[in-house]
């Protein structure tokens, strides 16, 4: 508008063999809303999706807190303000609310006695069958296959409501190539994993994405404990141990930010016990398109 970029839309897909969903996003600068920009971009996205033979659209939209009537998630967990502009916009365009996600923040540094206590308590709860390993950056060669499995399970085991999330298969080679690219990227990974000693296989992982600039927040990336290893307090062990590692190797960041599905009650309870608190919510919405 007048030579300035004031809105953007994103269209993101996976190979058609992995499903017919397109992940979309429309963002209009707050100073340029109510001028038809969002509608024009959304129309473009739907045209693009139809041309690309996509049959469902998924969008994640921030919903600011507001009083009044609520639109509840069909998962039974969480809701968004029914009167918000983005909610009315999406409903008018035929989207359905599928899931509510919580954004949470942990202020850093976490006191050493608190984080040490959390690590110690969770280690006592975990069986001696489990052993912690930690690193930054590239995955050690011995764990490449296990890490590929854990990342694959993130796409199948995380709560996904009715959002048509396809299995995202990771292999040793794909992980190597991803880490080749990441080495030139702007963030470093700080990783903690637990090994199941009787099988010498990894049972869980958590990963923090750390910017080089110490004044930027750290992003909490994947956390998963394989289903067959749950119930041993490994999620808390991983989280607390990784925060301790972060504070040791990359101190000075102001916070950690994480997003969780509101129905992921176990992970939310772990996060709250560590000290995370909610800073906002977003809806995950889906629209089913007529086949082209």
């Amino acid at each position: 508008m007048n030579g300035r970029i004031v809105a953007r839309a994103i269209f993101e897909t996976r190979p058609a063999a992995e499903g017919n969903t397109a992940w979309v996003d429309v963002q209009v600068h707050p100073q340029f809303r109510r001028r038809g920009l969002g509608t024009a971009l959304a129309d473009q996205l739907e045209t693009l999706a139809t041309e690309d033979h996509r049959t469902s659209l998924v969008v994640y939209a921030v919903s600011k807190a507001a009083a009044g009537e609520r639109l509840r998630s069909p998962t039974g967990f969480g809701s968004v303000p029914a009167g918000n502009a983005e909610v009315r916009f999406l409903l008018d365009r035929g989207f359905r609310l599928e899931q509510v996600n919580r954004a949470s923040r942990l202020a850093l540094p976490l006191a050493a006695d608190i984080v040490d206590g959390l690590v110690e308590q969770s280690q006592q709860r975990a069986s001696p069958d489990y052993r912690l390993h930690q690193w930054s950056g590239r995955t050690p060669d011995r764990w490449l296959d296990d890490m590929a499995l854990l990342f694959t399970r993130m796409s199948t085991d995380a709560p996904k409501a009715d959002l048509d999330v396809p299995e995202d298969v990771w292999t040793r080679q794909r992980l190597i190539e991803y880490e080749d690219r990441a080495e030139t990227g702007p963030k470093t990974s700080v990783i903690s994993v637990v090994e199941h000693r009787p099988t010498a296989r990894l049972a869980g992982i958590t990963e923090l994405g750390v910017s080089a600039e110490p004044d930027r927040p750290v992003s909490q990336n994947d956390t998963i404990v394989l289903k067959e290893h749950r119930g041993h307090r490994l999620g808390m062990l991983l989280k607390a141990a990784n925060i301790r590692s972060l504070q040791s190797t990359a101190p000075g960041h102001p916070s950690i930010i994480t997003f969780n599905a509101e129905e992921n009650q176990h992970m939310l309870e772990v996060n709250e016990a560590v000290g995370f608190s909610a800073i906002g919510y977003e809806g995950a919405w889906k629209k089913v398109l007529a086949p082209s």
Partner: protein
Amino acid sequence: MTDFTLERIAIPAHLDDPDEADFIGADFIGADFIATVEVRNATEADGYGTEELSAPPPNCCRSGSTRSTNRSSCLRLE
């Protein structure tokens, strides 16, 4: 009255990659992409009430994006 235009661009792999100039114009040095990230950051700050969710443009390039495709932003769902 429509007083805006829409233009399609791709997400560059790097902001300093001269090959990326092809898709957006000869004078591309990342300015337009950076402007789209500024829009993203403004909307995130408005929605969450904090600028802590802002992302520097390199984090939103393809090489700096996340593994997951299930959240179209520079952050991701745990």
